[in-house]
């Protein structure tokens, strides 16, 4: 479940946590300040969707501990992320 290592200065799970926080702030900032950033809406939407996939995979691998699992269960979160994300991506891209 966890990514603890006693001799590490900072626990790997803490690094993942900080990465998740950073990616969340990036998602929020892209949405909040896109008027100034000027990304096309399709690029903005696909970028934040991609960030969400990355965050979900990090949670599955490091917080849920699936990177230490082999077999079908290893990929349950990955498959779940890809299924709705591909449908969401298709629906959004077809609407522009």
């Amino acid at each position: 479940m966890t990514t603890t290592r006693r001799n590490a200065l900072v626990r790997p799970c803490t690094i993942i946590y900080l990465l998740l926080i950073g990616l969340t702030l990036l998602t929020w900032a892209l949405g909040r300040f896109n008027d100034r950033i000027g990304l096309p809406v399709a690029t903005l939407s696909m970028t934040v969707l991609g960030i969400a996939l990355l965050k979900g995979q990090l949670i599955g691998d490091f917080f849920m501990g699936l990177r230490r699992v082999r077999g079908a269960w290893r990929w349950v979160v990955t498959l779940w992320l890809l299924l709705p994300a591909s449908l969401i991506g298709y629906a959004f891209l077809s609407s522009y």
Partner: protein
Amino acid sequence: MTEKNRQPPGDLAIWIFICAELGVFAVFFAAYAFTRAQHVELFNRYQQTLNSNYALINTLALITSSYFVVRAVAAIRDDHQRSCARWLGAAIAMGGVFLVVKSMEYHHHFSAGVTLSTNTFYMFYLSLTFFHFMHVLMGMVILAAVALKARRGGYSASAYTGVETGASYWHMVDLVWIILFPLVYVMR
């Protein structure tokens, strides 16, 4: 090199439950996206009425609570029952932050006369976020039960499946929000 397991952490039954829950949310997300594709202007207009600052605070609260749960599992693996209970207590508190902020958001919309039947966007927004809200509440009850048992010495370094089971459910709640946040509040 860490040895890999065939089973995911915690009780296998919770993972079957998690798969069912994730399936329901996947259908919900797809329904939102495809309905939006038919009503792009409506969804974009009313999405602007949502407060993305509240959503940011809630995302940070859930990620932080998930991190606390990871630390709780690490603590019980080291046979620190009290520390495990404390980390779980902190995770529950962050879940409480989520519920308070979300309630403030709902209060704002309800005060403005928004209901499920106001329009299609609000129907999805309210039902999707409230369904998730109930999962957060359920997760907090599960974590509280696990924390109480951990505090009473019910888990140890050799027997902590219950902690992992509760943790897996809580991470699932976090995982769903990770998609819900950009989908409802940011993507347009």
